[in-house]
């Protein structure tokens, strides 16, 4: 119906983001109601008004998403109907969870147990049966508080946990402390971990990280082969594998990665190279981070590597000199992907080369690489679910992006990257989104949606982590990654800080876009970079880059993809973007600016709190990329998606605009 007063009310209480709990709370709570039935919509609005909430009505899910994206911090909670003609309520739930990490309450006249269960698994905070009583509406504010509380906690927890993890990972890589990334990487790691943790927690419902060891993977492969790749659904695979403690989500995300991997193998060589770059990420110089993400371990190692590689990338990118990290791993890397070896950023072979080309990317490179490993790792752990798997890939890709970007600039890579990125991005975005969102979202939408059967969700988880990774590469180490993940930090607030984090993914996207060297035209679909709001100045590092890159990637993707997916990605990106400290953005911003300018980045003017508009731009861009990515992924997704997941598996780089 009409988005009435919604916007207006937003402005008034925009501030309420995380910390605004006004005295009159819960009065003034900003609610967005989505329902295709105008009667219900009107009635709900009336009742909510009566509860002294600020209400915005919307009768179409797509419109609701765009409203949310445009006003990243404009709402505190969303009420959505389950059955809607243009988009399933649960899909909307996922999107919101991924992108904005807002608490979402589902409503329906349908009170069937399975429907309610679906709401739970997709991450809804609550489920109301129509006719909705006013008493039920009176209490919806509790979900807002809860989410914020959990989001913050996650951040902290994850931080500490992450540290530990990170340290472990660090040791793996050894030379993680590359000169450039030393500081960053550590920071990144921390951030990433935090992000990852956050993401994990929120999205994966605090699932323990699943590390896909070689044996586990072999079991997985056996199961898949037994079922036949077409019939391989996570549920069956899980049954066949018969591994205690493994969840369907884990399997699903892993499956997604695997599919991606396969796609890559059979896909364009370029793409594969990109992919490999993603996967392998930093093989040599870059420190490979298995993008596959399947292997968190690898990622962790990768992350370490990534930092290194990122550093390298940066160097490469910037200086175009060295860069050539061992990117070339296209096929060989693939193996790694699944073999969970040391994570390597598979930057496609040429990618390094691209580095030189992509200046902007360079920035990302630095970040992404670092971020990726981490993210990937984080992703794994956090999402545990498919998402993790996906994400790692994404992450890697994201990270790789920078690297890839460098490399991919050359173009073919771009494709691969795009694929990778796409998928990764999607994942990333999801993860990115998640990180920030995870805090908040994970509980809700993201967590559920993503974690649940959504690959995307899981993907998102990783993303958030990645975002941290992303940020790391960027140098900011904490910042960057935090950026993307920082979103997570702000529980409740859609932290799309992802900007930072996304940078890596952007690289990927850029690649996708194919060589658009900064094809930032990713019209960020939906990637409202809310993150920008959060975007805390990415200090210094990359933040900007990622976003830029991402944006680039996204815009192109957007067109192809539906917003939905990209949105999630974008969200992730945004989250990262937000995380990216503005300062970073600044640094990066400059480069981005250029980029931005180039690409008609659709910078959403997210409210980036003080900071640079760049960040905002990035954020928006990122989201755009996300959308693109999701679009890509969607396109690519030929593989039967299981349960409406974002099956990135099907996502092939081919689709990526080349």
């Amino acid at each position, binding site marked *: 119906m009409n988005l009435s007063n919604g916007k207006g009310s937003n402005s008034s209480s925009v501030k309420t983001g995380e910390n605004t709990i006004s005295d009159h709370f819960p009065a003034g709570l900003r609610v967005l109601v989505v329902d*295709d*039935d*105008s*009667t*219900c919509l*009107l*009635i709900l609005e*009336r*009742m909510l*008004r*009566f509860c002294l909430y600020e209400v915005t009505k919307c009768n179409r899910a797509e419109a609701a998403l765009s409203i949310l994206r445009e006003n990243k911090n404009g709402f505190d909670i969303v009420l959505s*109907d389950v*059955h809607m003609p243009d988009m399933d309520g649960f899909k909307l739930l996922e999107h919101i969870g991924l992108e904005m990490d807002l608490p979402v309450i589902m409503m*329906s*006249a*349908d009170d069937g147990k399975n429907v309610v269960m679906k709401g739970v698994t997709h991450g809804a905070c609550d489920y109301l049966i*129509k*006719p*909705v*009583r*006013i008493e039920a509406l009176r209490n919806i504010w509790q979900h807002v508080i809860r989410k914020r509380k959990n989001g913050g906690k996650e951040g902290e927890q994850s931080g500490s946990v992450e540290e530990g993890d990170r340290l472990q990972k660090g040791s793996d890589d050894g030379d993680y402390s590359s000169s450039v990334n030393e500081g960053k990487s550590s920071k990144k790691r921390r951030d990433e971990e935090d992000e990852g943790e956050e993401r994990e927690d929120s999205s994966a419902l605090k699932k323990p990280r699943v590390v896909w060891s070689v044996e586990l993977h072999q079991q997985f492969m056996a199961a898949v082969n037994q079922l036949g790749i077409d019939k391989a659904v996570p549920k069956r695979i899980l049954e066949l594998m018969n591994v205690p403690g493994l969840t369907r989500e884990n399997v699903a995300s892993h499956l997604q990665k695997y599919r991606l991997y396969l796609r890559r193998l059979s896909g364009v060589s370029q793409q594969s190279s990109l992919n490999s770059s993603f996967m392998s990420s930093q093989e040599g110089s870059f420190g490979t981070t298995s993008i596959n993400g399947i292997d968190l371990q690898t990622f962790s190692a990768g992350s370490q590597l990534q930092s290194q590689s990122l550093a390298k990338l940066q160097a490469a990118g910037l200086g175009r000199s060295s860069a050539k990290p061992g990117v070339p791993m296209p096929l060989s890397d693939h193996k790694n992907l699944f073999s969970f070896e040391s994570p390597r950023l598979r930057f496609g072979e040429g990618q390094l080369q691209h580095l030189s080309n992509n200046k902007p990317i360079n920035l990302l490179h630095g970040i992404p690489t670092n971020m990726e490993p981490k993210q990937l790792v984080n992703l794994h752990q956090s999402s545990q679910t498919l998402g993790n798997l996906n994400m790692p890939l994404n992450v890697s890709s994201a990270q790789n992006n920078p690297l890839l970007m460098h490399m991919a600039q050359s173009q073919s890579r771009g494709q691969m990257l795009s694929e990778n990125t796409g998928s990764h991005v999607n994942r990333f975005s999801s993860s990115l989104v998640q990180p920030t969102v995870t805090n908040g979202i994970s509980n809700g939408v993201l967590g559920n949606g993503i974690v649940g059967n959504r690959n995307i969700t899981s993907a998102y988880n990783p993303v958030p982590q990645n975002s941290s990774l992303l940020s790391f590469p960027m140098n900011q180490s904490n910042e960057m990654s935090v950026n993307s993940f920082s979103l997570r930090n702000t529980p409740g607030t859609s932290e799309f800080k992802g900007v930072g984090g996304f940078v890596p993914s952007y690289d990927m996207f850029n690649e996708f876009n194919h060589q658009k060297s900064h094809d930032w035209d990713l019209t960020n679909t939906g990637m409202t970079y809310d993150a920008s709001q959060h975007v805390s100045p990415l200090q210094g590092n990359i933040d900007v880059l990622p976003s830029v890159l991402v944006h680039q990637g996204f815009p192109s993707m957007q067109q192809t993809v539906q917003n939905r997916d990209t949105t999630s990605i974008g969200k992730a990106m945004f989250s990262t973007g937000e995380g990216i400290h503005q300062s970073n953005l600044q640094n990066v911003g400059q480069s981005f600016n250029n980029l931005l300018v180039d690409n008609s980045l659709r910078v959403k003017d997210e409210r980036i709190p003080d900071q640079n508009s760049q960040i905002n731009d990035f954020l928006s861009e990122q989201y755009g990329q996300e959308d693109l990515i999701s679009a890509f992924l969607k396109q690519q997704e030929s593989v039967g998606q299981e349960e409406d997941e974002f099956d990135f598996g099907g996502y092939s780089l081919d689709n990526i605009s080349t």
Partner: protein
Amino acid sequence: MDRNQSRRQVAAMKQCLFDQDDANPNFVEEIVTLHYRDSSRLISSIEQALKERNLDFNKLDTLMHQFKGSSSSIGAKKVKAECNLFREYCREGNAEGCTRSFQQLKKEHGALRKKLEAYFQLARQAGPHETACRSK
């Protein structure tokens, strides 16, 4: 009798709507009008679907679900009950039961509409305040 029924329905509706004095007293009327406008459309599409040779129960179920949500939101209990019945028949695949139930539903729907219209008429005559204060 009629009045009672109507009151009951309206009371139920008010409960949901939480009508207030200070608020727009015509809100209820607005809602009801809106509801009837939408539901008429729904009813005709259901009717159309029922006329088909092979009933698509899924579609019918979906349509009915929408109708049910809408009706229950305004507090039309009887209509809602009929909706449930209809959906049951749909689930069973009982075409005849569906048709029958649908006829009943239309009847209830129409009857409620009449009552509400009468109610509004009275309310308007009685004056806004009184209307708003009408209790259960």
